[in-house]
């Protein structure tokens, strides 16, 4: 059961078309919403005239800022800075200034095009350099950040982390490797575009959203609408991919206000283009200086990272902080200084995206390690192994010590890629490692109901957005309570029915909610023990409930039989409630230590067409330390999926902006993601298991690891194949070709 590959929970409905995503739900009396935007990034908004739109038959409402409370309600997980609709000025290309509700989507679309908006484009801040330039316009009204000394700048926050004596490290260094690497803006591109429905629900409201954090959304809406939590019911049907882009509220407040105003259900389904204008990953420039002794020992690391976040904070500054805090990587480095800034800009608000700020840093630091290996004349694998933290090392002072035998992961990847063996001309190999902190706080509740026939219902507030949480919880319950896995139903996605879960992020759900489910199962087992002891007339201490069965000494009882006898004629069920807390630690720079680390090593072999710059990933090996595999197929799916997503930002993905701050490659025609034809010619993934994680049966979280270090591994391989050093992503054929033109003849 544990470690096997039962069919995915919810799998059958996913292959029959029965799985109902938000846009598939049917509502009586539904109104359709379309956003109204202007063709500018930053613009002064003048008069908004809805008259022509309101004249379109079947149009019921043109929502403008004038229709919303004054002052404009604002929201955001870090800063309450995002308005329900832009007021006064737009802050980025695609920010809605109004919204239309109509009986048909045709009418809503037509009317949205007829809302007249007077606007005057204003200079926009769209680059890191501009955001750092004191003469640039301010992206945010300083009044949104009262008492913040940085409010008069475009620096949202500056973070400083580190330890040790940097000056001593500088003195000790025999070789210093210094460079700046840039990481592009990319978008989550979930195949399910975000969809939102709101409907009056008695004296409260119900909202449906493809959201990763339904309970957080519930709090946001309750606060904005001044309703008790119990009157805000959030339904979170399984999202069609999240990748971080569906963590936090986006247009739910807007549709909620519209539904309450109209007294009817309203639905907004974004176009793919609108998702590009709703969510993205922060771009970053990262300068890394690393000092080494000649034997390869790292003696200091000095990192300065500037992340270009968007016009509103969303969760972006947390992304910057968490991504930067671990940016030294899994190495034992005596002196580290990290400065990281989140820079506001007139671009789409960046938010969480698989890897959460780490891929940007890892691209730079691991590429710096590759350069160091060359400068030092030490094999890149050897250099990493020499400095890698060993299990228990306090490599990140004040945080969780190294929680894995990470050298096993590196060696497995090196062995699989054939590190050190000869390669034909035009081929190259690269290897990199990636480390990411798991969740720093957490709170998950689960209920487990063992029904009278031995089948099980689990309630868990995780959002199953593809990671397969349904399967994991069913496996745990099945294993603990002796039910066939297909006798377990996992109920999610309804804040009125399912107990609280903090959030679905940071690869936490197998560990934190998994432990809550396990704890609930243990409670049920305790009740079974009491029941069995009473039935058999023995002491409770003589009854063991474990691995799905009840044992009294040598006797084994079927759980279903114990239930039938114990529950008696009235039937009933045994209910367990599980709770898993990871408390905050206010003195910690991130508010808490890591629950676990995700550690991955990626090794690739590439070929490069030196005439065209085409990079072909011939072999891709990804090895992750997962503690314990709970579901083999899903572990593989997460690792390979993360790897391919990493190849996207490594080889092809990036937003293109015009000078006015508008997105030029809005939509699928000119924003390319990997297809089946862009896969590595072979892909291998492996999970390292030492059962040393904090989750059920020793599991760690693992859904992001395989994305973390794809880019530096590929770039190192390109360098190995051609000698060309490239410090900007993506490695498009044109960029590689240019680097090949510029390379110094060997």
């Amino acid at each position, binding site marked *: 059961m544990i470690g096997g590959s039962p069919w995915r929970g919810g799998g059958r409905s996913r292959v029959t078309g029965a799985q109902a995503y938000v846009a598939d739900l049917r509502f009586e009396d539904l109104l359709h919403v379309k956003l109204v935007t202007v063709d500018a990034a930053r613009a002064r908004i003048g008069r908004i005239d809805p008259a022509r739109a309101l004249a379109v038959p079947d149009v019921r409402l043109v929502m403008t800022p004038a229709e919303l409370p004054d002052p404009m309600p604002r929201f955001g997980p870090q800063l309450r800075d995002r308005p329900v609709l832009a007021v006064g000025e737009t802050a980025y290309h695609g920010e809605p200034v109004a919204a239309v509700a109509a009986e048909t989507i045709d009418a809503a679309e037509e009317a949205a095009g007829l809302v007249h908006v007077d606007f005057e484009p204003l200079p926009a801040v769209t680059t890191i350099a501009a955001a750092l330039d004191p003469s640039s316009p301010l992206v945010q009204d300083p009044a949104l950040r009262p008492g913040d000394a940085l409010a008069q700048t475009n620096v949202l926050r500056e973070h400083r982390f580190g330890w040790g004596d940097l000056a001593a490290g500088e003195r000790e260094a025999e070789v210093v490797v210094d460079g700046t690497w840039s990481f592009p803006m990319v978008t989550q591109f979930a195949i399910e575009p975000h969809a939102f429905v709101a409907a009056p629900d008695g004296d409260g409201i119900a909202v449906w959203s493809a959201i990763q954090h339904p309970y957080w959304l519930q709090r946001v809406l309750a606060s904005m609408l001044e309703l008790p939590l119990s009157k805000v019911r959030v339904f979170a049907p399984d999202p069609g991919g999240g990748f971080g882009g569906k963590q936090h509220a986006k247009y739910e407040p807007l549709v909620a206000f519209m539904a309450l105003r109209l007294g009817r259900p309203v639905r907004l389904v974004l176009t793919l283009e609108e998702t590009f204008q709703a969510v993205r990953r922060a771009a970053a420039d990262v300068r890394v200086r690393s000092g080494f002794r000649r034997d390869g020992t790292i003696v200091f690391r000095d990192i300065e990272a500037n992340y270009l976040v968007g016009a509103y904070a969303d969760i972006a500054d947390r992304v910057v902080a968490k991504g930067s805090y671990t940016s030294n990587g899994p190495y034992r480095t005596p002196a580290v200084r990290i400065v990281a800034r989140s820079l506001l800009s007139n671009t789409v608000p960046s938010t969480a995206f698989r890897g959460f700020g780490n891929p940007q840093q890892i691209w730079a630091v691991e590429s710096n390690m590759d350069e160091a290996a060359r400068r030092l004349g030490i094999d890149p694998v050897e250099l990493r192994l020499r400095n890698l933290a060993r299990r228990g090392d306090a490599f990140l002072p004040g945080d969780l010590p190294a929680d894995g035998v990470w050298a096993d992961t590196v060696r497995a990847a090196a062995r699989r890629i054939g590190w050190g063996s000869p390669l034909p001309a035009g081929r190259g190999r690269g290897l990199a490692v990636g480390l990411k902190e798991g969740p720093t706080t957490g709170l998950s509740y689960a209920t487990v109901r063992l029904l009278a026939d031995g089948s099980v219902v689990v309630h868990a507030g995780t959002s199953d957005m593809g990671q397969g949480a349904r399967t994991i919880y069913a496996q745990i319950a099945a294993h603990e309570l002796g039910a066939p896995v297909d006798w377990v139903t996992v109920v999610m996605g309804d804040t009125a029915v399912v107990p609280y879960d903090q959030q679905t992020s940071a690869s936490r759900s197998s560990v934190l909610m998994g432990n809550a489910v396990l704890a609930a199962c243990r409670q049920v087992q305790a009740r079974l023990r009491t029941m069995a002891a009473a039935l058999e007339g023995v002491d409770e201490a003589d009854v063991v409930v474990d691995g799905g069965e009840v044992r009294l000494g040598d006797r084994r009882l079927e759980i279903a039989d114990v239930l039938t006898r114990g529950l008696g004629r009235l039937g009933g069920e045994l209910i367990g409630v599980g709770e898993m807390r990871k408390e905050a630690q206010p003195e910690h720079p991130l508010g808490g230590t890591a629950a676990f680390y995700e550690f991955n090593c990626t090794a690739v072999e590439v070929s490069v067409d030196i005439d065209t710059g085409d990079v072909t990933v011939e072999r891709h090996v990804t090895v992750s330390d997962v503690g314990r595999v709970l579901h083999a197929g899903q572990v593989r799916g997460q690792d390979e999926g993360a790897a391919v997503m990493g190849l996207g930002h490594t080889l092809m993905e990036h937003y293109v902006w015009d000078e006015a701050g508008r997105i030029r490659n809005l939509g699928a025609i*000119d924003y*390319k993601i990997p297809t089946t034809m862009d896969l590595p010619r072979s892909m291998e993934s492996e999970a390292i298991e030492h059962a040393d994680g904090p989750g059920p049966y020793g599991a760690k979280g693992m859904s992001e690891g395989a994305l973390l270090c794809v880019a530096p591994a590929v770039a190192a391989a390109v360098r190995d194949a051609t000698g060309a050093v490239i410090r900007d992503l993506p490695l498009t054929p044109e960029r590689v070709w*240019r680097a090949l033109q510029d390379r110094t003849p060997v």
Partner: protein
Amino acid sequence: MRPFRYERPDRLADAVALLGEGSARVLAGGTDLVIRLRDGSLRPEVVVDVKRIAEIDDGIHEVDDRIVIGARAVMTDIAAHPRIRADFPALAEAALVVGSVQIRNRATLAGNVCNASPAADTAPALLVYDAVVVATGPDGERRIPIDAFFVRSGVTTLGPGELVTAIELPLPTQPRGSVHQRRTRRRGHDLASVTLACAITPDGTTRLAYGSVGPRPVLATAAGHAGPVGEVLERMLAAAAPSPTSLRASPEYRLAMLRVHAERALDTARRRLAEQAAQ
């Protein structure tokens, strides 16, 4: 999508009459048209679906000394057609890289030509094979050499009310090595940033056509022994003038890749010619 009137004439004459109405667009495969109807860049009052017109077929036929490709023939069928694969491989290869399978199951060669996109992958092949566009309009049928068909992006020499009914390819009268090559941002389907076709005959005559490096696809011809290969190629590629504002590739890269792909295409075409001679 803005509403429009939909017409599905059975007869060619009716289609011609409808197209003469002014704001009308032809619907064949729809793989470009529907995108542009949705994004609002086209706002016709009438959409004329030509797929039920008796005089226009979806077949590929050999007629006398030429292959006639009906205006409804889709890329999938063109790419798979044995005669096209044998005698017009550059066209088969180009048809095979137009979008995904789903796109190729709908997209027509005639539609690709009529859109007159500078990046149209089939255009260079049609140019090197001297294709003829057959069109019918208010004044009857007209046969337009493909090189005289393209004007610039989105513009052809079709007159008001004129409709393409077929595309013809003269059958080769001598052995010929030919090939299509292109450059995209990824291996999966993409719009070309360079697309070209090359054909070589035993007398050394080289025909090279290329697109996505200027406002319309260009055909260049060189006789055998016209000079050193490098110089000949330079002359043949001289008409390339890529857009400086495209986001798919810089002009510098396009020009460099045009050269690379042209050289590779020449090699392949020569090899294919030699293989034919050996048979």
